[in-house]
């Protein structure tokens, strides 16, 4: 490849208004220096041209995503941006430590609330907030999973507002998705820009499935000699089906639907194979609690398998993640996570929370209603960017309508200040433009004191100018996320 004759100056012509991750004060952030050099040599035309190839690659590889509410079976690509989001080794080291700490505390919290309830007895968290929470699952009271792990896989959503300020926006302790994009984005980047990876400065993420499999097998019931894990998917029309199939294949385990499984008279779980029933020891289920087992949860669910709950309670099979984790990532419980870290680990939290108003509290509710146009309001049980209000972007009518919904059921909401999320350069038709990003690293817990985070993450980017909503169901895109070596 020859040098482009037309000098484009790399990032030098790029002028973001707020805090951008390529900047450090008035200079260039250390992590972006090498990339900036490369871009100066290549020119933005190269990016645009190779980006077209990316689209073809993703489609051919069938890396698609179904959007609910659209016609059944319609598959869409998540828009991919070819400019990587880059973190220095020092930045990552701190994030990693903070994530591990947070996940250990959350696992301890879940174990505690379903057994001895020390944190409630100590008055650190109001008892009603937990025991009356709709995510609290009385069916698993007193249950301890085989290796004490309830949060096998988690995704911690993080935002950044300055070179040194990272905030946890939310914890995902149920079935966080998106990790396949972390891996496929890297795969596509390596195909499109092999020259960028020659220096071996970017830490690899491809071993994630290997770590995931180790995590799953570590949680197997003690009685299982050669434990077998499977991945339980709701099926090909699920929005994350590609990911289910990708992970099963990378781990070399069976991808099963509820109909492939049955619970025998011995309360063990079996899968139907061409050679007859075969026992299953660990189920990485990508299915919500309420669909898991029509005997115990939703009666009309055809997605799960009757008797799974019974088998799990008898420790004949391990469900990853455990049942009942929703009470740990509920938005009304989120404000207490820093206290959990201190209570269970006796440590100072490394990562901060976003300041949060709990509308169940009368004072907070009053304040929020008076400042609605400045705040972001979220449903406590919501996810995927549905059912939320972004005050500064809302019309007067929207604000009024939302205020009515809040008054009708205040405890259903929390509110947070609108953060000035960092931006990253993103390829647009007119050239490079700043767009807001967040970060979702994935943590794997193989024992209550052992958490692994693969050095990478899913970076979601709000592609519309000025937008703060990064969810893929709401028109967000993704970027490859680089962690540089030490």
């Amino acid at each position, binding site marked *: 490849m020859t040098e482009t004759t037309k000098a484009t100056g790399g990032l030098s012509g790029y002028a973001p208004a707020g805090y951008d991750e390529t900047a450090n004060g008035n200079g260039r952030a250390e992590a972006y220096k090498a990339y900036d050099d490369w871009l100066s040599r290549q020119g933005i035309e190269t990016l645009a041209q190779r980006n077209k190839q990316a689209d073809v690659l993703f*489609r*051919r*590889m*069938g890396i698609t995503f179904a959007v609910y509410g659209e016609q059944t079976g319609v598959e869409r690509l998540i828009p991919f941006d070819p400019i990587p989001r880059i973190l220095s080794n020092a930045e990552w080291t701190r994030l990693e430590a903070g994530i591990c700490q947070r996940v250990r505390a959350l696992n301890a919290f879940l174990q505690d609330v379903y057994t001895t309830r020390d944190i409630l007895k100590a008055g650190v968290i109001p008892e009603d907030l937990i025991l009356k929470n709709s995510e609290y699952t009385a069916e698993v009271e007193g249950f301890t999973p085989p290796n004490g792990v309830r949060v096998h896989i988690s995704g911690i959503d993080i935002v950044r507002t300055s070179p040194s300020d990272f905030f946890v926006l939310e914890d995902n302790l149920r079935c966080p998705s998106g990790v396949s994009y972390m891996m496929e984005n890297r795969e596509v980047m390596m195909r499109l820009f092999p020259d960028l990876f020659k220096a071996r400065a970017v830490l690899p993420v491809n071993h994630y499935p290997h770590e995931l499999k180790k995590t799953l097998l570590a949680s197997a019931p003690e009685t299982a000699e050669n434990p077998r894990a499977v991945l339980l998917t709701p099926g*090909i029309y699920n929005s994350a*089906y590609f990911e289910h*199939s*990708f992970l*099963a*294949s990378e781990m070399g385990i*069976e*991808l*099963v*639907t509820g*109909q*492939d499984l049955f619970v025998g008279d011995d309360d063990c779980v079996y*899968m*139907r*194979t*061409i*050679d*007859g029933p075969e026992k299953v020891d660990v189920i990485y289920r990508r299915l919500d609690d309420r669909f898991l087992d029509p005997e115990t949860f939703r009666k009309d669910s055809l997605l799960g398998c009757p008797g799974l709950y019974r088998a799990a309670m008898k420790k004949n099979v391990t469900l990853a993640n455990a049942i009942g984790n929703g009470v740990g990532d509920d938005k009304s419980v989120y404000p207490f996570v820093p206290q959990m870290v201190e209570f269970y680990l006796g440590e100072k939290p490394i990562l901060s929370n976003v300041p949060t108003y709990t509308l169940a509290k009368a004072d907070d509710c009053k304040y929020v209603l008076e400042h609605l146009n400045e705040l972001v309001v979220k449903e406590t049980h919501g996810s995927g960017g549905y059912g939320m209000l972004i005050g500064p972007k809302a019309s007067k009518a929207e604000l009024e309508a939302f205020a009515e919904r809040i008054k009708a059921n205040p405890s259903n909401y929390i509110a947070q200040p609108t953060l000035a999320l960092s931006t990253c350069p993103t390829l647009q038709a007119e050239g490079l433009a700043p767009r807001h990003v967040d970060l979702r690293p994935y943590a794997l817990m193989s024992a209550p004191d052992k958490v692994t985070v693969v050095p990478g993450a899913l970076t979601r980017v709000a592609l519309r100018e000025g937008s703060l909503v990064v969810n893929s169901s709401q028109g967000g895109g993704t970027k490859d996320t680089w962690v540089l070596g030490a």
Partner: protein
Amino acid sequence: MLSRTADNIYWMARLVERAEAAARVLEAAYRMEQLPGAGTGWEPVLTIFGQIEPFRRKGVDMTTKNVFDFMIFDSENPSSIYSCVKSARENARSERSVLPEELFESLNATWIELQGLSYAKVERNGWRDFFEWVKDRTELFRGMAVSMMVCDDAFQFERMGAYLERADTTARLLDVKYHILPPSDDADKGLVDYYQWGEVLRAVGGWQAYRTLYKDVPTPEKIVDMLVFNPVFPRSLRSAYGEIVTSLGALKKESLSLKIAAQEQAYLSTATTKDILKGRPLHDFLTDFVGFTANLSVQIGRDFMV
């Protein structure tokens, strides 16, 4: 291996084979339409695929355009090339975790390209190009399956699906053509027969094979021999059953499917064209064969996919 996986892979292979067969038969018939006086119309083609009644229910004339629309693009016709590729790709998508990556990606690419085609577009570029494209894509799929799949259970179900479908198609094709082309001594019919039987050979990609194996102009009896009993022609009933039996035998479980398939294979290995034509009309033999093959498919389902 999961029973559902076996089922999906088996049907994936059957449907890809069916798309290929549709392309071959349509191409051969389309060629005949261009030879004055040689064509036999579209009814036999629709009969081969069991689609004569569904087509009639459409209430349209049996023109080339309407038949192509129905057999290639119609999403409501489960035997159209469009539907076959769509369902095959969906089955593959369900099982991509057990298939070689390139196998799914290649089928996915075919599906993406097919979605971008329409009657008008293909007509502009020429039908022959289109049929060749379908044959290329489906044969590429078969080739990838053979050269990339591990010879495990998944591979056996892939092979069974492909050859069971192939046996079924060859038998139907022969039945329909033999019915409208009974052997006769009428000299005037000789030339038409020549083209008609040539069409049959083209539809199974067997022109060159016929010349090599029989060193003769096409004659009905020799063509029946090639399509039914020939042990080296890959689309003969005997070859197809040989592959099916090999696959059933490679599975761990001893099954009733294997037993009955092996009996049929033994018959095809020992009988001759003269034997069948002596006892009863070819049509009866082929009707029995198609029925038997359908039952075998049901039995495979009972043995492995419950």
